[in-house]
Protein backbone atom coordinates (compact mmCIF):
# COMPACT_ATOMS: atom_id res chain seq x y z
CA UNK A 1 0.00 0.00 0.00
CA UNK A 2 1.45 3.41 -0.96
CA UNK A 3 1.85 6.41 1.30
CA UNK A 4 -1.17 8.36 0.01
CA UNK A 5 -3.50 5.36 0.60
CA UNK A 6 -2.05 4.86 4.08
CA UNK A 7 -2.56 8.53 4.98
CA UNK A 8 -6.10 8.43 3.56
CA UNK A 9 -6.93 5.36 5.67
CA UNK A 10 -5.43 7.10 8.68
CA UNK A 11 -7.68 10.10 8.00
CA UNK A 12 -10.75 7.84 7.59
CA UNK A 13 -9.96 6.12 10.91
CA UNK A 14 -10.34 9.47 12.68
CA UNK A 15 -13.37 10.38 10.56
CA UNK A 16 -15.47 7.40 11.71
CA UNK A 17 -15.87 8.37 15.40
CA UNK A 18 -16.71 11.93 14.35
CA UNK A 19 -19.49 10.69 12.05
CA UNK A 20 -20.73 8.24 14.72
CA UNK A 21 -20.93 11.09 17.24
CA UNK A 22 -22.84 13.22 14.70
CA UNK A 23 -25.38 10.41 14.08
CA UNK A 24 -25.84 9.92 17.86
CA UNK A 25 -26.34 13.66 18.35
CA UNK A 26 -28.85 13.86 15.48
CA UNK A 27 -30.88 10.89 16.79
CA UNK A 28 -30.99 12.43 20.26
CA UNK A 29 -31.81 15.89 18.84
CA UNK A 30 -34.73 14.59 16.76
CA UNK A 31 -36.14 12.85 19.89
CA UNK A 32 -36.45 9.46 18.26
CA UNK A 33 -34.06 7.75 20.67
CA UNK A 34 -36.78 5.42 21.89
CA UNK A 35 -37.83 4.35 18.38
CA UNK A 36 -34.25 3.88 17.19
CA UNK A 37 -32.80 2.78 20.54
CA UNK A 38 -30.90 -0.19 19.14
CA UNK A 39 -29.38 1.94 16.37
CA UNK A 40 -28.31 4.41 19.03
CA UNK A 41 -26.72 1.57 21.02
CA UNK A 42 -24.98 0.31 17.86
CA UNK A 43 -23.54 3.76 17.21
CA UNK A 44 -22.40 4.05 20.83
CA UNK A 45 -20.58 0.68 20.58
CA UNK A 46 -18.89 1.76 17.32
CA UNK A 47 -17.91 5.09 18.85
CA UNK A 48 -16.53 3.43 21.99
CA UNK A 49 -14.55 0.91 19.93
CA UNK A 50 -13.15 3.60 17.62
CA UNK A 51 -12.11 5.91 20.44
CA UNK A 52 -10.44 3.07 22.40
CA UNK A 53 -8.67 1.71 19.29
CA UNK A 54 -7.45 5.13 18.18
CA UNK A 55 -6.09 5.80 21.68
CA UNK A 56 -4.26 2.48 21.44
CA UNK A 57 -2.86 3.40 18.01
CA UNK A 58 -1.67 6.72 19.36
CA UNK A 59 0.00 5.05 22.35
CA UNK A 60 1.74 2.52 20.04
CA UNK A 61 2.99 5.19 17.61
CA UNK A 62 4.45 7.19 20.46
CA UNK A 63 5.93 3.99 22.03
CA UNK A 64 3.87 4.42 25.18
CA UNK A 65 2.86 0.76 24.91
CA UNK A 66 4.70 -2.30 23.52
CA UNK A 67 3.58 -3.28 19.99
CA UNK A 68 2.75 -6.94 20.78
CA UNK A 69 0.75 -6.02 23.87
CA UNK A 70 -1.05 -3.30 21.89
CA UNK A 71 -2.02 -5.81 19.19
CA UNK A 72 -3.17 -8.29 21.84
CA UNK A 73 -5.47 -5.64 23.40
CA UNK A 74 -6.63 -4.41 20.00
CA UNK A 75 -7.55 -7.94 18.93
CA UNK A 76 -9.93 -8.35 21.90
CA UNK A 77 -11.40 -4.85 21.62
CA UNK A 78 -12.10 -5.37 17.92
CA UNK A 79 -13.73 -8.80 18.18
CA UNK A 80 -15.71 -7.98 21.35
CA UNK A 81 -17.21 -4.91 19.72
CA UNK A 82 -17.85 -6.94 16.58
CA UNK A 83 -19.80 -9.54 18.60
CA UNK A 84 -21.83 -6.79 20.27
CA UNK A 85 -22.50 -5.18 16.91
CA UNK A 86 -23.70 -8.49 15.43
CA UNK A 87 -26.27 -8.87 18.21
CA UNK A 88 -27.28 -5.21 18.01
CA UNK A 89 -27.59 -5.41 14.20
CA UNK A 90 -30.13 -8.22 14.61
CA UNK A 91 -32.04 -6.11 17.15
CA UNK A 92 -31.92 -3.07 14.83
CA UNK A 93 -33.41 -5.13 11.98
CA UNK A 94 -36.08 -6.40 14.39
CA UNK A 95 -36.98 -2.86 15.53
CA UNK A 96 -37.00 -1.51 11.96
CA UNK A 97 -39.35 -4.28 10.86
CA UNK A 98 -41.63 -3.53 13.82
CA UNK A 99 -41.68 0.18 12.97
CA UNK A 100 -42.27 -0.44 9.28
CA UNK A 101 -45.18 -2.78 9.90
CA UNK A 102 -46.80 -0.67 12.65
CA UNK A 103 -49.98 0.19 10.62
CA UNK A 104 -50.61 -3.47 9.73
CA UNK A 105 -50.85 -4.91 13.24
CA UNK A 106 -51.75 -8.44 12.20
CA UNK A 107 -48.85 -8.81 9.77
CA UNK A 108 -46.56 -7.14 12.28
CA UNK A 109 -47.36 -9.74 14.95
CA UNK A 110 -47.02 -12.62 12.51
CA UNK A 111 -43.80 -11.23 10.99
CA UNK A 112 -42.21 -10.66 14.38
CA UNK A 113 -43.05 -14.20 15.42
CA UNK A 114 -41.42 -15.54 12.24
CA UNK A 115 -38.45 -13.20 12.74
CA UNK A 116 -37.88 -14.41 16.31
CA UNK A 117 -37.88 -18.02 15.15
CA UNK A 118 -35.52 -17.28 12.24
CA UNK A 119 -33.15 -15.37 14.56
CA UNK A 120 -33.20 -18.18 17.15
CA UNK A 121 -32.54 -20.83 14.49
CA UNK A 122 -29.76 -18.69 12.96
CA UNK A 123 -28.02 -18.34 16.33
CA UNK A 124 -28.34 -22.10 16.92
CA UNK A 125 -26.94 -22.83 13.42
CA UNK A 126 -24.08 -20.35 13.98
CA UNK A 127 -23.08 -22.14 17.18
CA UNK A 128 -23.52 -25.53 15.50
CA UNK A 129 -21.35 -24.62 12.48
CA UNK A 130 -18.66 -23.08 14.69
CA UNK A 131 -18.55 -26.10 17.03
CA UNK A 132 -16.20 -28.17 14.89
CA UNK A 133 -13.56 -30.27 16.72
CA UNK A 134 -10.47 -28.35 15.57
CA UNK A 135 -11.78 -24.97 16.75
CA UNK A 136 -11.06 -24.02 20.35
CA UNK A 137 -10.92 -20.90 22.47
CA UNK A 138 -10.59 -17.67 20.56
CA UNK A 139 -10.92 -19.26 17.09
CA UNK A 140 -14.23 -20.80 18.20
CA UNK A 141 -15.53 -17.40 19.30
CA UNK A 142 -14.36 -15.76 16.07
CA UNK A 143 -16.07 -18.52 14.06
CA UNK A 144 -19.37 -17.93 15.96
CA UNK A 145 -19.13 -14.18 15.41
CA UNK A 146 -18.37 -14.82 11.72
CA UNK A 147 -21.44 -17.00 11.25
CA UNK A 148 -23.65 -14.65 13.26
CA UNK A 149 -22.52 -11.66 11.22
CA UNK A 150 -23.15 -13.46 7.94
CA UNK A 151 -26.65 -14.41 9.09
CA UNK A 152 -27.29 -10.87 10.23
CA UNK A 153 -26.06 -9.49 6.88
CA UNK A 154 -28.33 -11.79 4.87
CA UNK A 155 -31.32 -10.92 7.10
CA UNK A 156 -30.54 -7.22 6.70
CA UNK A 157 -30.48 -7.47 2.91
CA UNK A 158 -33.77 -9.37 2.97
CA UNK A 159 -35.31 -6.66 5.16
CA UNK A 160 -34.04 -3.94 2.83
CA UNK A 161 -35.54 -5.73 -0.16
CA UNK A 162 -38.87 -6.06 1.67
CA UNK A 163 -38.95 -2.41 2.84
CA UNK A 164 -38.03 -1.18 -0.65
CA UNK A 165 -40.65 -3.14 -2.54
CA UNK A 166 -43.46 -2.99 0.05
CA UNK A 167 -42.94 0.69 0.84
CA UNK A 168 -46.29 1.85 -0.55
CA UNK A 169 -48.61 -0.51 1.37
CA UNK A 170 -46.81 0.54 4.56
CA UNK A 171 -47.50 4.23 3.90
CA UNK A 172 -43.78 5.09 3.70
CA UNK A 173 -41.76 7.07 1.17
CA UNK A 174 -38.11 6.94 0.15
CA UNK A 175 -37.55 9.96 2.40
CA UNK A 176 -38.75 8.04 5.48
CA UNK A 177 -36.16 7.31 8.14
CA UNK A 178 -37.16 3.65 8.15
CA UNK A 179 -36.01 3.38 4.54
CA UNK A 180 -32.87 5.44 5.23
CA UNK A 181 -31.82 3.27 8.17
CA UNK A 182 -32.56 0.09 6.19
CA UNK A 183 -30.52 1.41 3.24
CA UNK A 184 -27.56 2.19 5.51
CA UNK A 185 -27.78 -1.23 7.13
CA UNK A 186 -27.98 -2.80 3.66
CA UNK A 187 -24.78 -0.98 2.63
CA UNK A 188 -23.00 -2.24 5.74
CA UNK A 189 -24.30 -5.79 5.19
CA UNK A 190 -23.23 -5.91 1.51
CA UNK A 191 -19.79 -4.48 2.33
CA UNK A 192 -19.41 -6.90 5.23
CA UNK A 193 -20.10 -9.87 2.92
CA UNK A 194 -17.79 -8.55 0.17
CA UNK A 195 -15.11 -7.82 2.73
CA UNK A 196 -15.37 -11.33 4.13
CA UNK A 197 -15.05 -12.81 0.65
CA UNK A 198 -11.96 -10.62 0.10
CA UNK A 199 -10.38 -11.60 3.40
CA UNK A 200 -10.98 -15.29 2.69
CA UNK A 201 -8.51 -14.92 -0.20
CA UNK A 202 -6.21 -12.09 0.98
CA UNK A 203 -5.37 -12.25 4.68
CA UNK A 204 -3.64 -8.97 5.37
CA UNK A 205 -4.29 -6.50 8.16
CA UNK A 206 -3.59 -3.46 5.98
CA UNK A 207 -5.03 -4.21 2.55
CA UNK A 208 -6.30 -1.99 -0.26
CA UNK A 209 -9.82 -3.06 0.64
CA UNK A 210 -9.56 -1.05 3.88
CA UNK A 211 -10.01 2.01 1.69
CA UNK A 212 -13.24 0.67 0.12
CA UNK A 213 -14.37 -0.34 3.59
CA UNK A 214 -13.67 3.12 4.95
CA UNK A 215 -15.58 4.85 2.17
CA UNK A 216 -18.57 2.50 2.52
CA UNK A 217 -18.81 3.08 6.28
CA UNK A 218 -18.41 6.81 5.76
CA UNK A 219 -21.18 6.79 3.14
CA UNK A 220 -23.49 4.81 5.45
CA UNK A 221 -22.94 7.20 8.34
CA UNK A 222 -23.52 10.16 6.01
CA UNK A 223 -26.81 8.60 4.80
CA UNK A 224 -27.98 8.23 8.40
CA UNK A 225 -26.86 11.75 9.27
CA UNK A 226 -28.83 13.13 6.31
CA UNK A 227 -32.00 11.19 7.17
CA UNK A 228 -31.87 12.26 10.82
CA UNK A 229 -31.02 15.90 9.98
CA UNK A 230 -34.29 16.56 8.19
CA UNK A 231 -37.80 16.15 9.62
CA UNK A 232 -39.40 12.88 8.60
CA UNK A 233 -42.42 13.13 6.24
CA UNK A 234 -45.61 11.84 7.85
CA UNK A 235 -46.88 8.44 6.86
CA UNK A 236 -49.37 8.61 4.04
CA UNK A 237 -52.92 7.38 4.46
CA UNK A 238 -52.78 3.73 3.52
CA UNK A 239 -55.40 3.01 0.90
CA UNK A 240 -55.45 -0.59 -0.17
CA UNK A 241 -57.85 -2.21 -2.64
CA UNK A 242 -60.25 -4.64 -0.99
CA UNK A 243 -58.61 -7.42 -3.00
CA UNK A 244 -55.10 -6.52 -1.73
CA UNK A 245 -53.22 -9.56 -0.39
CA UNK A 246 -51.68 -7.27 2.29
CA UNK A 247 -55.15 -6.42 3.60
CA UNK A 248 -56.37 -10.01 3.43
CA UNK A 249 -53.30 -11.45 5.19
CA UNK A 250 -53.47 -8.69 7.79
CA UNK A 251 -57.09 -9.61 8.60
CA UNK A 252 -56.20 -13.30 8.77
CA UNK A 253 -53.20 -12.61 11.02
CA UNK A 254 -55.29 -10.45 13.33
CA UNK A 255 -57.89 -13.20 13.65
CA UNK A 256 -55.13 -15.73 14.38
CA UNK A 257 -54.04 -13.81 17.43
CA UNK A 258 -57.53 -13.39 18.92
CA UNK A 259 -58.30 -14.79 22.31
CA UNK A 260 -61.05 -17.37 21.68
CA UNK A 261 -64.36 -17.43 23.56
CA UNK A 262 -65.30 -20.55 25.58
CA UNK A 263 -68.59 -22.42 25.90
CA UNK A 264 -69.47 -25.09 28.49
CA UNK A 265 -70.80 -28.17 26.72
CA UNK A 266 -71.09 -30.67 29.54
CA UNK A 267 -70.18 -31.67 33.06
CA UNK A 268 -71.61 -28.49 34.54
CA UNK A 269 -72.86 -29.12 38.10
CA UNK A 270 -76.14 -27.30 39.02
CA UNK A 271 -74.44 -25.70 42.03
CA UNK A 272 -72.57 -23.40 39.61
CA UNK A 273 -75.79 -21.65 38.68
CA UNK A 274 -77.54 -19.05 40.78
CA UNK A 275 -81.05 -20.04 42.07
CA UNK A 276 -82.62 -17.40 39.77
CA UNK A 277 -80.85 -18.90 36.74
CA UNK A 278 -82.04 -22.39 37.68
CA UNK A 279 -85.57 -21.08 38.03
CA UNK A 280 -85.42 -19.50 34.53
CA UNK A 281 -84.18 -22.79 33.06
CA UNK A 282 -86.88 -24.78 34.87
CA UNK A 283 -89.61 -22.51 33.52
CA UNK A 284 -88.16 -22.63 30.02
CA UNK A 285 -88.11 -26.43 30.05
CA UNK A 286 -91.68 -26.49 31.35
CA UNK A 287 -92.78 -24.42 28.36
CA UNK A 288 -90.92 -26.65 25.88
CA UNK A 289 -93.10 -29.31 24.14
CA UNK A 290 -92.50 -32.89 25.23
CA UNK A 291 -91.47 -34.04 21.71
CA UNK A 292 -88.71 -31.42 21.59
CA UNK A 293 -87.42 -32.52 25.00
CA UNK A 294 -87.31 -36.16 23.84
CA UNK A 295 -85.42 -35.04 20.69
CA UNK A 296 -82.92 -33.22 22.81
CA UNK A 297 -82.53 -36.31 25.03
CA UNK A 298 -81.94 -38.57 22.03
CA UNK A 299 -79.34 -36.12 20.64
CA UNK A 300 -77.65 -36.11 24.01
CA UNK A 301 -77.50 -39.94 24.07
CA UNK A 302 -76.14 -39.98 20.47
CA UNK A 303 -73.39 -37.48 21.30
CA UNK A 304 -72.51 -39.49 24.42
Amino acid at each position, binding site marked *: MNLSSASLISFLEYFEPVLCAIVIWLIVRSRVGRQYGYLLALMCVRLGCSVTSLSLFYATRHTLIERHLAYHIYFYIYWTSYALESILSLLVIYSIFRLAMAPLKGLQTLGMLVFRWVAAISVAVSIGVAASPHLTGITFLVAIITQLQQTSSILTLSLLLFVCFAIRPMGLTYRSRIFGVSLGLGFLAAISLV*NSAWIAHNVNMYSRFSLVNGFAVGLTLLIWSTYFSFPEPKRRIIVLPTTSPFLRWNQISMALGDDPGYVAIGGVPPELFAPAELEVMRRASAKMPVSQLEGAESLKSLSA
Partner: protein
Amino acid sequence: MKYIARAIVVVLVLTGAAASTQLSSASPSKDKIMISRPSMLPVPTCDPNDPNACGFKG
Protein backbone atom coordinates in the same frame (compact mmCIF):
# COMPACT_ATOMS: atom_id res chain seq x y z
CA MET B 1 -36.42 8.44 -7.43
CA LYS B 2 -38.40 5.23 -7.09
CA TYR B 3 -36.43 3.43 -9.81
CA ILE B 4 -33.06 4.74 -8.60
CA ALA B 5 -33.78 3.56 -5.03
CA ARG B 6 -34.94 0.17 -6.28
CA ALA B 7 -31.90 -0.18 -8.54
CA ILE B 8 -29.52 0.59 -5.65
CA VAL B 9 -31.28 -1.92 -3.43
CA VAL B 10 -31.21 -4.63 -6.11
CA VAL B 11 -27.49 -4.00 -6.75
CA LEU B 12 -26.75 -4.23 -3.02
CA VAL B 13 -28.69 -7.47 -2.65
CA LEU B 14 -27.05 -9.03 -5.72
CA THR B 15 -23.61 -7.97 -4.49
CA GLY B 16 -24.29 -9.51 -1.09
CA ALA B 17 -25.59 -12.70 -2.69
CA ALA B 18 -22.55 -12.96 -4.98
CA ALA B 19 -20.18 -12.38 -2.06
CA SER B 20 -21.93 -14.96 0.11
CA THR B 21 -21.39 -17.62 -2.59
CA GLN B 22 -17.65 -16.97 -2.22
CA LEU B 23 -17.96 -17.37 1.53
CA SER B 24 -19.79 -20.67 1.42
CA SER B 25 -16.76 -22.36 -0.15
CA ALA B 26 -14.53 -21.19 2.70
CA SER B 27 -15.10 -23.05 5.95
CA PRO B 28 -13.79 -21.67 9.26
CA SER B 29 -10.23 -22.85 9.78
CA LYS B 30 -7.90 -22.74 12.73
CA ASP B 31 -5.43 -20.10 11.61
CA LYS B 32 -7.51 -17.85 9.38
CA ILE B 33 -9.95 -15.04 10.13
CA MET B 34 -12.75 -15.22 7.60
CA ILE B 35 -14.73 -12.05 8.21
CA SER B 36 -14.19 -8.44 9.07
CA ARG B 37 -16.35 -5.77 10.56
CA PRO B 38 -17.17 -2.98 8.11
CA SER B 39 -15.14 -0.29 9.73
CA MET B 40 -12.40 2.17 8.97
CA LEU B 41 -10.19 0.41 11.52
CA PRO B 42 -7.74 -2.30 10.32
CA VAL B 43 -8.88 -5.89 10.77
CA PRO B 44 -6.80 -7.96 13.23
CA THR B 45 -6.48 -11.01 10.97
CA CYS B 46 -3.82 -12.91 12.96
CA ASP B 47 -3.78 -14.77 16.26
CA PRO B 48 -3.55 -12.45 19.33
CA ASN B 49 -0.19 -14.06 20.20
CA ASP B 50 1.26 -13.64 16.70
CA PRO B 51 5.09 -13.22 16.99
CA ASN B 52 5.03 -10.39 14.44
CA ALA B 53 1.94 -8.74 16.05
CA CYS B 54 0.32 -9.08 12.59
CA GLY B 55 2.39 -6.15 11.34
CA PHE B 56 0.57 -3.87 13.78
CA LYS B 57 1.84 -0.34 13.30
CA GLY B 58 -0.56 1.52 15.49
